[in-house]
């Protein structure tokens, strides 16, 4: 931590504790140790002291032990020529500061009972509200818990002009934050500025004028401390619980406006204990490494027009968008709606023009949340039936944002755009296709609205993994081309990345128990080389899903010790399976169809079955309605093996999995594949060819029979013999 800040904070703390001691002695002489002391109408005594130390200050005499605590917390002044780690002493100085200030304010209630109004709003010409009583705490605290108010800004001092004061207050109000105000800068306070500008202050408008002096910061900190005890069930004295509750749940920050004195530094150091960072308008030293606070501790010299945005970013406050702001209806009900040729107003992609979608990550300072830009013509610049090229680029920034999330976020564009009435979306990546209906265009829907949709929905559904998103939409040919090239480079990079991963080098697999609602004993465990059998979840998707929803159906599974490398069995996976299958299964193999194969819920894209006469396996996909050489159609097979049973000889898997290296590797791998439907073979032709070359049998695809050769083992065997299919000369599949 900055030495300048620490020495200032520690100096300030010494001064404040000395003041508190003097006040205490004075009060003691006047009233004696048995005098009642405290804030009005609260069961939390002096809340910071009570919450952090557990000491219930009821009588003036009780203050003595608190002051002792302050003295023991107070570190020595920082020496000019010794450099030490200062964070811990500064935090302790900050804590001593807040204790001392609470004593000072409590004595003020004794000395000047009418200094504060003790009400929700200013009354009888008195602007200063003082400590919130327990009724206000409950009523307002509920808003902190249910999220209608995410936190508060504790403002010390005042900005240079009334206009800026009003602007800041408005901006903070728009973010639903409470504004807790205290202290003056050059004799002016923010509260007075607002009143002079005709703005109503008080709890009702969330602009709370706590007090004119810097010691009134403790009303804000006391409120936060009581919230932890009242709503978090934290017991008095459990300082760790109180500080963590605030760090994790109350999105508060300190905003000193004006000259930062030693005393202000001391208060800021105190607030850091609660995880509340400081965002200042003046050029004070910054404390950027993270540690106590979620992100930075002290950020300074921020221009007024960026102050609120920066504060929100530093505190890690999430933006919420309640409604998608577009002129047509919006919801999942419209997802399946088609826009047919006769209804068509505008079309992008679909073979007529180029359309491309790309989600990417940018730096925090490169993204302005909610900024939507359109480059090129929009709906009203073109006539009915027009076709435009289109590039949608969503640029994300966030502390938790990872490159791995990009494809997952990008894939959502399909759903999100489809939810709009009169918009149809098909495909993804560089084969996206969007159609807008006449009716939607008539209601004023523009291409630019796609940006609004994406901004709102990304925040609603994926706010956990990013902080800011801006959307750029291009409809000019050359710009679209440019984006297309960039996006294609990224697609190649992504594909190579997941394809380069192996099960051996990956320690954590992911479970998927999404289907337990209807197949209660089924547990998928997804590894890089065994993608989900439904085809919808690969390892990367599961990882992201876990990050987005840590208590959801995709949980990390440490694969643990290897039990069988050939068949693919690991101890960690078995342990997880035993518990998650409700003790129905205690092990299965990832790479075998013969020996205890992995189960299927029933959602599998394909089902493989062994063909004993051919000494090989066949696989059939869901779209194949005809008979297969194993004597069962897909539906019969699904009915037989679905529901979470491990059935030797049968295996549910995804289409993509067929060409992954580990597919059936324990039984000989893809060399065993003797039959598959023709359309499936065509669908995966490129990758099948590649895989065949890799195992040294480049003409394997031609050796695999399909329904045109036959739909029984007897019919296909001569074909296999004629082609010299490798399965025929392999070890017997059944031993």
């Amino acid at each position, binding site marked *: 931590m900055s030495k300048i800040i620490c020495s200032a904070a520690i100096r300030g703390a010494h001064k404040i504790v000395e003041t508190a001691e003097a006040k205490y002695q004075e009060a003691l002489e006047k009233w004696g140790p048995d005098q009642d002391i405290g804030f009005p109408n609260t069961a939390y005594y002096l809340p910071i002291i009570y919450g952090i130390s557990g000491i219930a200050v009821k009588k003036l005499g009780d203050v003595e032990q608190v002051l002792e605590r302050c003295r023991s917390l107070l570190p020595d002044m920082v020496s000019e020529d010794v450099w030490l780690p200062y964070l811990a002493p500064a935090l302790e100085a900050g804590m001593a500061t807040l204790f001392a200030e609470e004593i000072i304010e409590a004595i003020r209630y004794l000395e000047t009972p009418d200094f504060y109004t003790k009400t929700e709003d200013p009354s009888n010409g008195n602007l200063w509200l003082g400590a919130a009583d327990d009724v206000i705490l409950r009523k307002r605290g509920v808003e902190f818990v249910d999220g209608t108010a995410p936190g508060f800004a504790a403002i010390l001092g005042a900005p240079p002009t009334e206009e800026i004061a009003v602007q800041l207050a408005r901006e903070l109000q728009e973010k639903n934050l409470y504004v807790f105000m205290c202290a003056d800068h050059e004799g002016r306070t923010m509260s007075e500025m607002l009143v002079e500008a005709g703005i109503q202050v008080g709890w009702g408008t969330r602009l709370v004028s706590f007090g004119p002096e810097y010691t009134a910061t403790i009303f804000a900190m006391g409120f936060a401390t009581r919230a932890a005890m009242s*709503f978090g069930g934290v017991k008095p004295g459990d300082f760790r619980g109180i500080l963590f509750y605030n760090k994790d749940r109350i999105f508060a920050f300190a905003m000193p406006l004006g000259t930062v004195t030693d005393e202000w530094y001391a208060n800021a150091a105190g607030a850091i204990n609660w995880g509340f960072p400081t965002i200042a308008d003046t050029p004070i030293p910054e404390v950027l490494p993270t540690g106590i606070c979620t992100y930075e501790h002290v950020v300074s010299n921020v221009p007024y027009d960026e102050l609120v945005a920066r504060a929100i970013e530093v505190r890690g406050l999430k933006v919420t968008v309640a409604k998608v702001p577009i002129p047509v209806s919006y919801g999942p009900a419209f997802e399946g709606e088609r826009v047919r040729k006769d209804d068509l107003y505008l079309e992008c992609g679909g073979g007529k023009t180029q359309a491309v979608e790309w989600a990417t990550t940018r730096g925090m300072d490169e993204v302005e949340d909610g900024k939507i830009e359109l480059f090129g013509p929009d709906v009203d610049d073109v006539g009915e039936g027009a076709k435009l090229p289109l590039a949608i680029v969503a640029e994300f920034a966030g502390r938790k944002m990872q490159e791995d999330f990009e494809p997952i976020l990008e894939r959502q564009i399909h759903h999100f755009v489809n939810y709009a009435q009169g918009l149809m979306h098909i495909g993804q990546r560089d084969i996206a296709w969007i159609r807008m209906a006449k009716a939607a265009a008539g209601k004023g829907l523009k291409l630019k609205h796609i940006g609004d949709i994406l901004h709102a929905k990304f925040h609603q559904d994926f706010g956990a993994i990013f902080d800011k998103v801006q959307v750029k939409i291009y409809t000019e040919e050359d710009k679209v081309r440019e984006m297309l090239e960039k996006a294609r480079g990224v697609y190649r990079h992504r594909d190579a990345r997941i394809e380069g991963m192996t099960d051996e080098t990956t320690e954590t697999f992911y479970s998927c128990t999404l289907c337990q609602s209807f197949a209660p004993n089924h547990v998928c465990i997804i590894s890089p080389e065994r993608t989900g059998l439904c085809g919808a979840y690969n390892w990367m998707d599961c990882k992201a899903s876990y990050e987005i929803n840590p208590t959801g159906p995709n949980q990390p599974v440490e694969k643990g010790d290897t039990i069988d490398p050939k068949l693919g069995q690991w101890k960690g996976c078995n342990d997880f399976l035993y518990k998650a299958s409700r003790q129905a299964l205690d092990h299965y193999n990832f790479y075998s169809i013969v020996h205890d194969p992995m189960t299927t819920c029933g959602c599998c894209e394909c089902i493989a079955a062994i063909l004993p006469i051919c000494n090989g396996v066949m696989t059939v996909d869901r779209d194949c309605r005809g008979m297969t050489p194993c004597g069962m159609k897909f539906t019969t097979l699904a009915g037989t093996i679905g529901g979470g049973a491990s059935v030797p000889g049968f295996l549910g898997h995804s289409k993509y999995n067929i060409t992954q290296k580990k597919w059936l590797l324990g039984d000989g791998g893809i060399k065993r594949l003797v039959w598959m439907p023709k359309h499936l073979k065509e669908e995966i032709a490129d990758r099948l060819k590649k895989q065949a070359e890799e195992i040294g049998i480049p003409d394997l695809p031609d050796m695999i029979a399909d329904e045109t050769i036959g739909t029984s083992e007897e019919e296909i065997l001569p074909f296999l013999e004629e082609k010299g299919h490798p399965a025929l000369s392999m070890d017997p599949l059944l031993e």
Partner: protein
Amino acid sequence: MAFEIPKISYNGAIKEIPLGKEASRMIVGGETCYPFYLFEGDMPRPPKIAMEVYDAPPDDWPQAALEPFADVLQDPAAWAQKCVASYGAEMIALQLASTDPNTQDTPAEQAVEVTKKVAAAIEVPLIVWGSANLEKDTQVLKMIAEECAGENLILGPVEEGSYKALGAASLAYQHTIGASTPIDVNLAKQLNILLGNLGVPDERILVDPTVGSLGYGLEYCYSVMERDRMAALTQEDERLQFPIVCNLAKEVWKIKESKISEEEAPLLGDPSKRGVLLEAMTALLLLLAGADILIMRHPDAVQLIRGFVNELIAN
């Protein structure tokens, strides 16, 4: 070799939830085995029966259901007292049916008044259940939470759309939550997770899995509750280890078979017994599926179930 009955190895337990006011504390939950599988584990507290009281005189009940309460229908407080004193109700469930915007749409203030009166009239724990209209329930139950601070009411239904507002209110004013989801294990779990994330302590959560009447989809509810208990007891699914409350009476007594007269349906038997038996049968099945609290209506059905529970526990 002697035959040994295979036993399920349980690794979870249902959480114990304290209900009601401090002075008359009642605890539900604590099971370490499937319902009444006393040969495999413990069921330290037999399931409890809460009897229904309505905030306004009902206008669609068959005679059989009205009869026992004819003298108290106008006065929810007296009704509640009668259930406790005459029929031995272990809890009371105040149904705020009249707040429903589709019926009488009585204001939240009125619901608060009724709740206060009923709460003052009884010592046993009080369940306060809204009309299952999300917006209105949020408004009504929030106000009740605030006005009846410290009563430790059981407030429901708390749904995904209202859990933040009602969860926060129950934290601030110390009530217990009836977390309600539409017949789905995953949704039930999700809501419990959300409540936990909000900071609602475990001992303030009951689960309402949503139930139907016998003959009207009860099988499905049964399976979901069964799954709920399997996950809780054998799968260490910590977010499902909560006692289950079944709001069944209003479902049973609204079906055609409990209302239709003997003239219209002579084959269905004596209408004065028919509804009672339908209610008792429904309750019995829900008990076997894992209910900890049954919200019931007719004293005769209550008595049948109580006898049944005693027998199962005794053996």
